[in-house]
């Protein structure tokens, strides 16, 4: 289907040629449509009926239903969208979830027209919805198989969800909010299954998650929904990636019980001497772009330490590039940078490409010589200086001036690679304080005194509680 043919710069012929070249689909098979104008939409339906094979299933078989989506309704509970691959289902049937093993009684079944329309029964080959008294969001897992009680079947393979392109660490502002955030995330992801969720934790911010989104906008909308619908405000950070190391020290191998370990926490980073090799996760990325953006895109990829694997022209106008990327270079903002550079025309897809050897180092952040454990990061040597400088600058903004100078440094082992200096106060006093009512001044002073009680002392430097948040949070995009 070639769509949006109503647009001014639409060129259906060219697109059809590309499709033929790329996918070997003859031009005559393409249906040109405009959803806006309604052109040929009927034809799509016909083609679907013609071309898509009917489901191979039998109503005589035992019930086998795939849950492919679900929504949560306050009054009726979980509404699961199902596709029946065998048997039939109706109100009153007792069903079991292959995933949770829980039993339910069916309250209602129906079809989607696209509104819910209750029916008496659903048969194999049909797609519809089901309400069965499920109360918790986790009870209707997408990809789950439902069968009749006492008639278990082989669970259907679940399906692959859309690939996330942008990742972020998400933490509650305060650890006491952890459970609230957990349930908010569960609810939100039930209705938005394209968000991937993994547990994660940070020394500075506590327990949290690593989430994957389809794009930056997706992430922003998700964040807004959290705030508006669940009243949760969160800290978003750049996500962590799982690095690995091949140990060479017999002692450590014994300690961990294996030669290859996964490093999740910078504190666990084994020393160079004990390691024969560090490894970073990589992906093979495929970019398709109009040729006018090639230069900028190649530069972007090189900046992200990617190695070109292939480049081919798929027609006179477009190029397909394949690059091997270190995962950590693309998880934050690569996708959006690519889109910006190419005015949205470039596309990106990726797949896991295993691990590659990498020159990784652990970078420490020091305050007047004392290391701040929470801010230690694992970074590739090539990017150490830039990252170090960035962290030092951010930290400088987050700490108030004190009675002595504060040296903020980024270090690799003993070597200092970046530095910012926070100068000492030379004058900090309210000039006129005679005859003016001191009540207001006292309030301010007492508030400052309270603030001091909450500060952490690292060496002799007083650090506010939210200083780390300020350093670690995702930069607001321009």
């Amino acid at each position, binding site marked *: 289907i070639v769509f949006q043919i109503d647009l001014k710069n639409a060129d259906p012929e060219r697109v059809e040629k590309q499709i033929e070249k790329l996918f070997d689909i003859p031009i005559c098979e393409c249906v040109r449509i405009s959803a806006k104008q309604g052109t040929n939409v009927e034809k799509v339906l016909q083609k679907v009926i013609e071309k898509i094979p009917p489901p191979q299933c039998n109503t005589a078989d035992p019930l086998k239903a795939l849950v492919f989506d679900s929504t949560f309704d306050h009054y009726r509970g979980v509404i699961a969208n199902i596709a029946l691959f065998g048997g039939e289902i109706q109100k009153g049937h007792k069903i079991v979830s292959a995933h949770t093993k829980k039993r339910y009684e069916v309250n209602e079944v129906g079809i989607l027209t696209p509104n819910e329309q209750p029916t008496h029964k659903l048969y194999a080959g049909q797609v519809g919805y089901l309400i069965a008294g499920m109360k918790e969001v986790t009870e209707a897992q997408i990809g789950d198989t439902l069968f009749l009680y006492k008639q278990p079947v082989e669970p259907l393979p679940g399906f692959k969800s859309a690939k996330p392109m942008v990742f972020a660490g998400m933490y509650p502002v305060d650890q006491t909010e952890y459970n609230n955030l957990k349930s908010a995330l569960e609810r939100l992801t039930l209705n938005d299954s394209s968000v991937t969720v993994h547990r994660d934790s940070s020394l500075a911010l506590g327990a949290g998650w690593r989430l994957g989104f389809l794009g930056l906008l997706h992430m922003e909308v998700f964040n807004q929904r959290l705030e508006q619908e669940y009243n949760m405000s969160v800290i978003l950070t750049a996500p962590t990636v799982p690095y690995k190391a091949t140990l060479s020290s017999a002692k450590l191998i014994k300690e961990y019980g294996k030669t290859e370990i996964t490093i999740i926490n910078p504190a666990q980073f084994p020393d160079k001497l004990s390691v024969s090799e560090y490894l970073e996760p990589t992906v093979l990325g495929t970019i398709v772009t109009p040729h006018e953006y090639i230069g900028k895109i190649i530069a972007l990829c090189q900046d992200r330490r990617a190695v070109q694997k292939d480049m081919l022209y798929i027609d006179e106008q477009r190029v397909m590039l394949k690059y091997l990327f270190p995962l950590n270079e693309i998880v934050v903002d690569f996708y959006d940078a690519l889109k910006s550079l190419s005015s949205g025309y470039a596309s990106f897809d990726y797949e896991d490409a295993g691990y590659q050897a990498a020159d990784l180092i652990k970078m420490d952040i020091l305050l007047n010589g004392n290391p701040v454990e929470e801010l230690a990061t694992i970074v590739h040597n090539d990017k150490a200086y830039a990252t170090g400088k960035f962290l030092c600058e951010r930290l400088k903004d987050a700490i108030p001036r*004190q*009675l*002595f100078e504060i040296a903020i440094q980024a270090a690799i082992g003993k070597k200092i690679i970046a530095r910012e200096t926070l*100068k000492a*106060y*030379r*004058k*900090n*006093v*309210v*000039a*006129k*304080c*005679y*005859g*003016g*009512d*001191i*009540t*207001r*001044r*006292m309030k*301010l*002073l*007492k508030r*400052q*005194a309270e*603030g*001091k*009680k909450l500060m952490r002392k690292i060496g002799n430097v007083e650090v506010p509680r939210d200083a780390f948040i300020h350093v670690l949070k995702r930069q607001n995009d321009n």
Partner: protein
Amino acid sequence: LCPQWPYCRKRCSYCNFNKYVVPAVDEAAVGACLVREARTLIRLSQVHSITSVFFGGGTPSLASPRTIAAVLEAIAGAAHLPAGAEVTLEANPSSTGTSRLAGFRAAGVNRLSVGVQSLDDAELRLLGREHTAAEARGASRGAWARGLEAALGLCDDHISLYQLTLERGTALAAQVSGGTLPKPPQDLLADMYETARAMLVAAGFRHYEISNFARKGALSTHNLSYWRAEQYIGVGPGKPGCQGAGGGGCARPQDSIVLPPVIAGAHGRFVPRGEGGCSREARVQTLEPNAWMREVQSQGHGTRRRAVLSPLEQLEEVLALGLRTDEGITHERWGHFSPYLSLEAVFGVPGEAKVLQEQGWLLLDGSGLRCTWVGLALLDSLLPDLLCQLQRR
């Protein structure tokens, strides 16, 4: 005692004090109310003797000598006002002709506090001041030093030096945040302060408070009593003591502290023994002059708010005010507010104060607790720590 005359001819761009620019002031009415409220509050406090009087506001020199005389007479009538008591009047250079000054002298004023923002015409226009003199804003250390020298040439034996504070809600703050006026860098301000201190000390002045210098013993009794947390009574609407309390010239480099909008009337700290009270109270008089006058006429005084200060709150004030002076807080003065817990007991034990002493900002010895020469300029960095330590005891 601090009577307030809240009226001015013009509003300066940096001012957020409670002042009113009205074309015609019913002087007789305001004067009568000041007299009435002064009598009422003196009686309420049961104070026997008044050590100093400070006419602030506004521009008190806009009031007639007759009104000033009337207020002084009322005070002398309600309590003992010794012959040599310090009586200060704040004056604007343009509203004080010689005959007028003579009138004030006859009324009993023996000290004048002249507010001068700068000896620079352009700068003054910028600040919205009525009077004039000469130099561009964007002060440099050299220009600042020259300005000081000029002021030194003009002044008597007392100088107050106030950095212009950007108060939210003032025209000046709007100009700076809007970008029409630049904010000077913190280091320059620190330099200017150091230059000023050095110059004035070299000229024989004693740096007796963060912003106040005096030679030949000409310290301001009134303000000293404030910093020593003695009792004081505020009369009238509006804040007492506007720019330039202290007599002589004042020059102001610009600061960049922006405080939230302040709305306070005349205020006081005393024990209302006349009502049977036995605790020191923080009191504020009604802001708006007309409302204030109505209250005075019907109830004898226009006190808008009063709150008893707990012993801890009193000590906090003693600390915050006392450390501003070079003598600091004497053991005796502390004992007056804290009979059971000496300075040693609170600050002599291991804790924040000891650390600050080791670092050279603070001194605790036989005379009392005070800041060192360098510590004085950093008082606001020291106070929160000391308050924490005090609160723990």
